[in-house]
């Protein structure tokens, strides 16, 4: 290496040290790069689906939610569900029957949105052929399950016969789930295997059993208790009184889709899925897609037909797809967009970015946990699980590793959710941890088998894992090997139980403790801990059927006590969402689900000239 290169490296390092960040209050540019009627945002990734019924994942939802309206919307200040496409609703006394009155609103092609659009779309969502990943959230609707699961609908028999005897005949001594239909005579026979199902139908359709001539066919959508009473009224009946129903249906999958666009795309391209392309798309919310460049950007323009269009603040929304975290920070800094997009900031940057006024930090409805595979040695022993859990200093993680204000968690439900009070538990006790570990037969970590911690390849996960690995080593003298696996393998390994310890982040689907507690039910497909406790199952189910919040939360607490005493899961922290937002972007409100409606967003044009000193009125307007 010659002298010149040494000199240049020294220069480079001094440059890097000196100009790392600007010294002003703001991070990067403070003047919009575009006209005042535009808003530029980041979406992070190219969405998989913007079809609202099929949308899954954050990049999909961010777009779908803003171009397809639902019956309700979440008020940006109060966080309560308020009317959107439904003008008002009536709820039966037992809390299971809802009648929604659809307001006068139009699709972006000028056609009226009717209750029939809702019926069609909800049934499309629940149709297994639609293959919507989130469709199971719709199973709260009465009699949706046989349709969604393609159960065989057996009917045609008289009402007064011995139905139980008939069921026994149909079962043929096998373990088949058969439910009685709720309102009229009929049976739902759940058979998973296609061939078996087909032969079952062949056998029983038109067959004479116990003196009854049966009809057997795959359940059609007519049984689902969500339908239009007329053009303006949409009726929904629920299995149970679901307290959070009005918040739940704010989820993008419950938006109506424009039949006319689907038909046109199908006719012209042969593929119905093409309906969300700019040439075919018809929207129902404040903005609509007008132009797209795959994996670069999408441009949305104001939809004049939206019922509340007068309150839509910006004419054009441009979203970009910048995926890599550090790249997205660079783009933000040079003013390519005003908001860094849904998701997290690079963990290592937090401390530095905190110094700027661009940095914001909101509570977020999600929990970061480590889970043990309770079917694998040595984690079959609850003492081992508890020992490892007690050896993790969660305070240290949230003060030194993830520093965006995350709260260390001793509960799997965030505090304050519908009045739920998180339990106070001892989180860090290395003494007790060592005692428990030696009780389990591993004094001072001796003889502890080689175990592996699996996480999906991402920087934050790695940083936390490295810190926890070191805590286990120092406090318990055990070696845990870290393995990062790519996303698909990580998912596969969780589903198949191919792990010792792994991380699991869980984002609530709706603001209710149930969305977090459902995760540890013995029958839940998401319960990767494989922990089974029937007492817990029945408590959570009981609470979910209870209409009184106080009673309900008390039962939930009881269930959580059982869960935490057995420690199949190690809650680490409650998420926050930290993000960067340009100071001139207004109409951007805190949201615990990281949902931000474009229709409220606007550019404070004073920033084109100078940094304004006075605050400006920034209250959201809905309706009149």
């Amino acid at each position, binding site marked *: *290496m*010659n002298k*010149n*290169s040494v000199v240049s490296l020294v220069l*480079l390092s001094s*440059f*890097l040290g000196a*100009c790392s960040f600007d010294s002003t209050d703001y991070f990067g540019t403070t003047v919009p790069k575009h006209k005042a009627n535009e808003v530029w945002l980041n979406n992070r990734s*190219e969405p*998989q*689906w913007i079809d609202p019924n099929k949308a*899954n*994942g954050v990049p999909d939802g961010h777009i779908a939610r803003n171009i397809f309206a639902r019956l309700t919307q979440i008020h940006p200040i109060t966080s309560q569900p308020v009317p959107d496409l439904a003008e008002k609703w009536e709820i039966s006394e037992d809390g299971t029957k809802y009648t929604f009155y659809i307001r006068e609103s139009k699709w972006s092609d000028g056609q009226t949105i009717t209750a029939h659009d809702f019926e069609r779309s909800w049934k499309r969502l629940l149709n*297994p*052929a*639609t*293959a*919507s*990943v*989130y*469709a*199971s959230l719709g199973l709260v609707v009465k009699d949706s399950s046989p349709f*969604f*699961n*393609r159960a065989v609908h057996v009917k045609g028999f008289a009402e007064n016969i011995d139905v139980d005897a008939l069921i026994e005949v149909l079962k043929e001594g096998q373990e088949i789930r058969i439910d009685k239909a709720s309102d009229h005579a009929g049976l739902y026979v759940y058979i*998973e295997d*296609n061939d078996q199902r087909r032969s079952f139908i062949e056998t029983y359709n038109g067959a004479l059993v116990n003196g009854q001539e049966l009809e057997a066919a795959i359940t059609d959508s007519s049984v689902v208790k969500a339908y239009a009473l007329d053009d303006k009224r949409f009726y929904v009946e629920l299995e149970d009184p679901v307290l959070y129903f009005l918040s739940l249906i704010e989820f993008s999958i419950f938006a109506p889709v424009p039949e006319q666009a689907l038909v046109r795309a199908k006719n012209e391209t042969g*593929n119905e*899925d*093409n309906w*969300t*392309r700019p040439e075919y798309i018809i929207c129902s919310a404040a903005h609509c897609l007008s132009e797209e*460049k*795959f*994996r*670069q950007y999408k441009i949305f323009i104001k939809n004049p037909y939206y019922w509340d269009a007068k309150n839509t603040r910006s004419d054009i929304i441009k979203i*970009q*797809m*910048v*995926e*890599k975290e*550090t*790249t997205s920070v*660079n*783009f933000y*800094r*040079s003013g*390519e967009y005003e908001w860094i997009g849904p998701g997290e900031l690079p963990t290592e940057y937090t401390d530095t970015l905190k110094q700027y006024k661009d940095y914001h930090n909101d509570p977020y409805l999600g929990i970061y946990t480590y889970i043990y595979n309770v079917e694998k040695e040595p984690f079959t022993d609850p003492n081992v699980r508890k020992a490892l859990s007690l050896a993790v200093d969660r305070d240290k993680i949230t003060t030194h590793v993830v520093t965006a204000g995350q709260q260390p968690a001793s509960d799997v439900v965030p505090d304050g959710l519908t009045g739920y009070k998180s339990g106070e538990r001892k989180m860090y006790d290395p003494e007790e941890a060592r005692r428990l570990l030696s009780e389990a037969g591993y004094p001072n970590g001796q003889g502890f088998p080689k175990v592996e911690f699996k996480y999906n390849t991402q920087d934050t996960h790695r940083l936390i894992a490295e810190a926890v690995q070191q805590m286990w080593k120092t406090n318990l003298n055990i070696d845990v090997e870290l393995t990062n696996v*790519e*996303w*698909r*393998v990580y*998912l*596969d*390994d969780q*589903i198949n139980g191919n792990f010792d310890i792994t991380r699991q*982040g869980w984002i609530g689907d709706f603001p209710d403790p149930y969305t977090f507690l459902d995760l540890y039910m013995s029958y*839940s*497909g*998401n319960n990767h801990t494989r922990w089974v406790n029937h007492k817990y199952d029945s408590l959570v189910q009981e609470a979910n059927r209870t209409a009184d919040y106080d009673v309900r939360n008390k039962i939930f607490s009881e269930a959580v006590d059982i869960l935490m005493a057995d420690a199949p899961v190690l809650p680490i922290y409650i998420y926050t969402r930290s993000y960067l937002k340009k100071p001139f972007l207004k109409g951007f409100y805190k949201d615990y689900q990281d949902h931000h409606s474009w229709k409220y967003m606007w550019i404070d044009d004073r920033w084109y000239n100078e940094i304004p000193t006075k605050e400006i009125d920034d209250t959201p307007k809905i309706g009149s």
Partner: protein
Amino acid sequence: MLKFILGRSFGMVITLFVIIFVSFFVIRFAKGSPFSQEREVPPEVLQDLQARYGFDKPMSTQFYNYMKNIVRGDLGLSTKYPQRTVNEIIAISLPKTMVLGFFALLWAVIVGVTAGVIGAVKQNTKWDYSAMSLAMVGISLPSFVLGPILILFFALYLLWFPAGGWGSAKHLVLPAITLGTIYAAYIARLTRGGMLEVIRANFIRTARAKGLKEKAVIWKHAFKGGILPVVTFLGPAVAHLMVGSVVVEKIFNTPGLGPYFVDAAFNRDYFLIMGIVIVYSAFLLVLNLLVDVIYGIIDPRIRYE
């Protein structure tokens, strides 16, 4: 010549078939499904998803159908972007990557050949040493270090170029330099080596003896022969550049084909990864053939069997 090209083309088709065959089955061996989600995917939904892509059929049928479609030029449907065909994704991304690759190549050839010629002509002088040291630095500096440094300095500090993205010529400068520098370094070394070898050869001495000017000797005679190793190198290099770089396109958020090498494999987007493997392999094979043909044109001593 024609016979040679035809023969090689036949071999290429066979090679390509083997590659398709092996890749098709190997990618299916990899753990993980294209449809798994963080939340459980209901079995009914999974069935329909698999039926949509024909994954429910036996592997042999799937391969047969796939080959049938390939012959018709249909590379299938992406699982990650279900509204897009693989053909469409490649058609959107490949041109961008090729434009970037072209400018990277331009940078590499201009800088590399210049440095190499300087090194050879001014052999063992300060010029030679600094050119070759710089080339060595270029080889020793990975793109994931060079890229961020360029961004930091030229995009965020001097504000000369955008930090990434796509749209104008300005967007191309930093990624093209990042991508092309290592190639420039190799080309510089190869040019210098090739020229040195030729300069010592007999026909150059003859040319000099004939009284030709040094400049003419260098450019007309030495350069033509000295560039041969660069041509060999350029074949695969062009293939690499034209199908893109995972790292550079990720750092600069270029909407090209490069990131798919990793992303499509990670997403288990079976048809997309197959499509990319096919495009890449075909590129490489064709370019290698092209190199051999060009070789024959530049160097008349080479005869095709």
